[in-house]
């Protein structure tokens, strides 16, 4: 057997040799796998758009700005990624969250495409409008440029059951929007003024993003949803089609063959279960309004959804 002194000399040689070999291999495959990464990132915007993920949405498929921001950042910082596709299947949601995501998309210095699947309505359309190009199926549900904050009033029910609402407020309008009392005409007017204001922002942003005249957007911004084919005629969508059209458009923009890589949301076990449960929870135009509003009412604050 080898002498003790020589042993450590040989050990050192092997260690140095393997270190150098590992560095070379890591450099080689590092570059190699980067090229396998793909050159087009696909980010999904699905479910209801909410400002933050919290326990209310434990079982719901939701999209929230922080998550999308991280995915966008990762794709934007990757030099191999030449374009980003936003695969949208959402009925909309929080106005704030929608604008935040739209603003993030506008910051991207790469080709961006919105690919509307089943639905890209309301807040989700706001997001789609911030991309360079919108592609939708002729039967996709899109548009729905409107704002909603409707809620169920319980004052009649409470009166019927001899329950009274003891109003204790400092500030005349502190309990505006409380479902436990009837809304006064003044309160209603104030509320509608805020909704109109948000509606105007929505219209303004869509017009700016789509290079349309505000008056033209205003005409279609009744809150009504449009099928893809109709939306194309109205200028709300650029092209009708599906995955192939998305790929064709990007190839003409970046001048190379498209290799899509999915940048997916982190989905836990509960998230996987939720996909089945939440599919039919929301309807066009309602967005997350009703759900958020249940909580908001109790806190005497108002939540508005697009």
């Amino acid at each position, binding site marked *: *057997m*080898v002498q003790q002194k020589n*042993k*450590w000399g*040989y*050990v050192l040689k*092997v*260690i140095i040799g*393997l*270190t150098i*070999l*590992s*560095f070379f*291999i*890591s450099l080689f*495959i*590092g570059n190699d*796998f*980067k090229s*396998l*990464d*793909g050159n087009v990132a696909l980010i999904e915007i699905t479910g209801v758009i909410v400002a933050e993920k919290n326990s209310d949405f434990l079982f719901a498929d939701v999209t929230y700005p922080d998550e999308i921001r*991280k995915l966008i950042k*990762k794709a934007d910082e990757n030099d191999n990624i030449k374009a980003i596709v936003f695969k949208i299947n959402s009925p909309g949601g929080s106005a704030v969250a929608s604008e935040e995501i739209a603003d993030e998309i506008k910051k991207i210095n790469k080709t961006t495409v919105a690919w509307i699947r089943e639905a890209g309505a309301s807040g989700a359309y706001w997001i789609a409008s911030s991309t360079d190009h919108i592609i939708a199926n002729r039967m996709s549900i899109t548009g729905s440029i409107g704002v909603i904050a409707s809620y169920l009033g319980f004052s009649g029910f409470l009166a019927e059951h001899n329950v009274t609402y003891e109003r204790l407020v400092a500030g005349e309008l502190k309990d505006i929007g409380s479902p436990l009392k009837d809304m006064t005409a003044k309160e209603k007017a104030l509320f509608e003024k805020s909704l109109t204001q948000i509606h105007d922002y929505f219209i303004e942003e869509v017009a700016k993003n789509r290079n349309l005249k505000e008056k033209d957007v205003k005409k279609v911004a009744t809150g009504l949803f449009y099928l893809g084919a109709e939306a194309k005629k109205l200028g709300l969508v650029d092209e009708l089609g599906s995955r192939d059209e998305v790929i064709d458009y990007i190839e003409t923009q970046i001048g190379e063959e498209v290799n899509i*890589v*999915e*940048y*997916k*949301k*982190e*989905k*836990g076990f509960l998230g996987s279960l939720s996909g089945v449960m939440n599919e039919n929870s929301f309807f066009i135009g309602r967005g997350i309004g009703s759900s958020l509003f249940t909580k908001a009412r109790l806190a005497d604050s108002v939540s508005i959804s697009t």
Partner: protein
Amino acid sequence: MNNISLKKGKTFLAQASVLKRLIAFIIDLLIINMIILFPFKKVFNGMVPQTESFSKTFDFLSSNTGSSAAITVIVILIAFLTILYFMLLEKKLNQTPGKILFNLYVESHEKELKYWQLFVRSMFLIPVFPFVLLWIIDPLVMLFTKENQRLSEILSRTKTVEKYKV
């Protein structure tokens, strides 16, 4: 150990202590971490997003098949470099740094250690099926064999012994 008759001033090779073997293996893993895994850290960081927990990383990998396939290839490559570490050292010295510190040696049932034997005794390091089964089977077999041999050692016709000086 009871069967060994010790003579003064001599060295004897006998069954190695399981604890010493475990500590020696951990020392080798620490060295491997520094010389083999460290250079690949940057590659992994570029492919896997920084997450708060292992489960989130797992979620990312299970939802991103492209990355997970690439990572599997890299992990197998690392496993072969690790096996190379054991093979190069055990072929020449019958020892690794961890084993040197505890006077442990790898012995062949045949005349000398051959490369195929060294590969087979280290193949539990390949993190793909069916080799991963050895992570459970190897230590279990070790506990129930007379000379504390792992299954990989039995298959490779090798054993790990400890040198005693008297």
